């Protein structure tokens, strides 16, 4: 998603407004393109502001966008701010118009806040390559440098077209790493900021490990690191080195489920199932720690895994059953 703003007499948002804007953009999962008379600004919530002279193409393109919404931007006074939300399909799905009587930066912020509220389905933080590509073709008229400012973002899928995007925005810190996941080596070229969770899900297609909070608070992303449970969202992939990762995909044998998986099924230890991969991998870590000595101990030592459906009683039962069935073995090929 892109927030496009036309603000004729606009200099510089200023540091404080910028911070607040970042927060709004983060909610929206969007970049901001602000087109002024002389200068245009572009930034993603996590990047520095890029400033470039405004070009005629840019102004024309924006004017067309708003015209499709029945707003004639050329007819506006220099004291008017137009702000719109450009969705992934390339249409302006919402816009607002405000007169700049006070501080233009604050007006911009207010408009961005309204935009955030209006977005019915906020996109996740970080924009996937598919959107990047749509955006690329859309804003083809923009200057390349401006684009770059908008482009740099979270890890991208290795979709064929993504290379076109990344060639626009070289990642200076990218490096080669080898990740051992479920006893298989994967060579990857990644930036230091990529977590194991994002590497698994976005790069290796191993989406069994879930992203709940991305802050270590829910346990949905639990994986084993050399047999010990950790939060994949808090672990940078470049720091894993030769250590072995085990994910939910690595638990079942060729023909049979892992005893813990069997137990979760048998005890109906889930409702929506979103937390389940994390619960099962965490339970495996717990059984290996030999601390599942009682229901109370299980509750305490599973406290790093939240379940919004509240399936806790059956999760505890499933873990007790798996413990009694000797379910603490790592799958043979992952030990």
């Amino acid at each position, binding site marked *: 998603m892109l927030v496009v703003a036309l603000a004729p007499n606009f200099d510089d948002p200023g540091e*404080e407004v910028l*911070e*607040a804007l*970042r*927060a*709004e953009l*983060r909610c929206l999962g969007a970049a901001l393109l602000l087109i002024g008379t002389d200068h245009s600004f572009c930034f993603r*919530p*996590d*990047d520095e502001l890029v400033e470039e002279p405004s070009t005629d193409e840019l102004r024309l393109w924006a004017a067309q966008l708003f015209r499709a919404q029945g707003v004639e931007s050329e007819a506006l006074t220099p004291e008017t701010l137009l702000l719109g939300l450009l969705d992934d399909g390339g249409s302006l799905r919402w816009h607002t118009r405000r007169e700049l009587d006070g501080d233009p930066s604050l007006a911009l912020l207010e408009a961005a806040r309204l935009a955030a509220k209006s977005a019915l389905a906020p996109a996740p933080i970080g924009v996937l390559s598919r959107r990047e590509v749509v955006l690329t073709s859309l804003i083809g008229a923009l200057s390349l440098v401006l684009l770059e400012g908008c482009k*740099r973002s*979270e890890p991208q899928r290795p979709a064929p077209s993504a290379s076109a995007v990344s060639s626009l925005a070289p*990642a*200076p*810190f990218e*490096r080669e790493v080898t990740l051992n996941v479920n006893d298989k080596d994967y060579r990857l070229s990644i*930036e*230091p*900021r990529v*977590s194991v969770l994002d590497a698994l899900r976005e790069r290796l297609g191993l989406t069994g490990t879930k992203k709940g909070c*991305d*802050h*270590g608070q829910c*346990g949905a992303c*639990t994986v084993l*690191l050399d047999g*010990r*449970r*950790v*939060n994949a*969202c*808090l*672990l*940078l992939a*470049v*720091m894993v080195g030769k250590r072995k990762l085990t994910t939910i995909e690595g638990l079942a044998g060729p023909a049979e489920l892992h005893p813990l998986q069997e137990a979760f099924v048998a005890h109906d230890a889930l409702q929506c199932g979103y937390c389940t991969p994390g619960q099962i991998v*965490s339970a495996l*870590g*717990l059984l290996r*720690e030999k601390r599942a000595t009682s229901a109370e101990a299980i*509750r*305490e*030592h599973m*406290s*790093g*895994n939240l379940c919004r459906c509240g399936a806790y009683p059956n999760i505890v039962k499933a873990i007790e059953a798996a413990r009694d069935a000797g379910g603490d073995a790592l799958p043979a090929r992952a030990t």
Partner: protein
Amino acid sequence: MRDFDYVVPKSLDEAVARGKQAEHRFIAGGTLLVDLLRLDVERPAALVDLNAVLSERISWAPNGLTAGALARNSDLADHPDVRRELPALSQALESGASPQIRNLASLGGNLMQRTRCAYFRDPGVAECNKRRPGSGCAALEGYSRMHAVLGGSRACIAVHPSDMSVALLALDAIVRTRRSQGGREIAIADFHALPGETPQVETALEPGEIVTEVFVPASGFSRRSAYVKVRDRAAFAFALASAAVALELSGEKIATARVALGGVATKPWRALEVEAALLGRPPTRETFEAAAKLAANGARTTPHNQFKVELARRVVVRALERAAA
């Protein structure tokens, strides 16, 4: 998350030199730093990985415990010597975070962890003296239920959130570090800084200085120690109030007492008046209750965090009872 470089130093000296460079941050377990990077609170140019240059070793000798700065929180909590000889330390570690986080989190990183003040963690909030020196403090006028009642200043009332550090304070630990001039030892009581007018300065460490290990002396009171933590839910939450206590008994009387508080102060907090009131008394509930009344002396509360005064007292009583048992 913003982009940054990642550096693996080959020696401790190289790590110190790297750490001194502008916008370079050390990373050990990453459980604190990755969180702050994702929140956009930390915006480093590069991370300096300490994992190759520090030790994870935990060893017990008759004079005390030596643990490398990389010792994982779970390994330290579980170590049989730590459980037996320094129960408050083991219990404090066990009460912190989750099993998954404790498997990653290091001793050094735990000592150095930053406040959980919600305003600090939200770069969309303009006023935070810790994050942006001189910008003001949103918590003073805002919602301060989790904030400190002890050790605060006009500039900041953020709680130091580490459970482990509270136990280390009660047990007289010594932090060993390395800086360019060489190694030094810092008493745990001098390690964490009060906010004063400079809440952005959180420890005694100089730029580039690295925690290499922690020493906890064996003492007459270290075995008879306990940690009690009260939180909003039974597990996996930060302390509303906590206490690490240690007692040495001589006959029927208390000969030495250590009482440290967590969750209520801007740094791990020694309750010296409580300690003094315990000396020479029998280890009974009456003694504990009378002494604990002094636990939050000098407290400065807000309408939201007033409850912490009484809570701290009760936590101290419970911890003393557990240590004396």
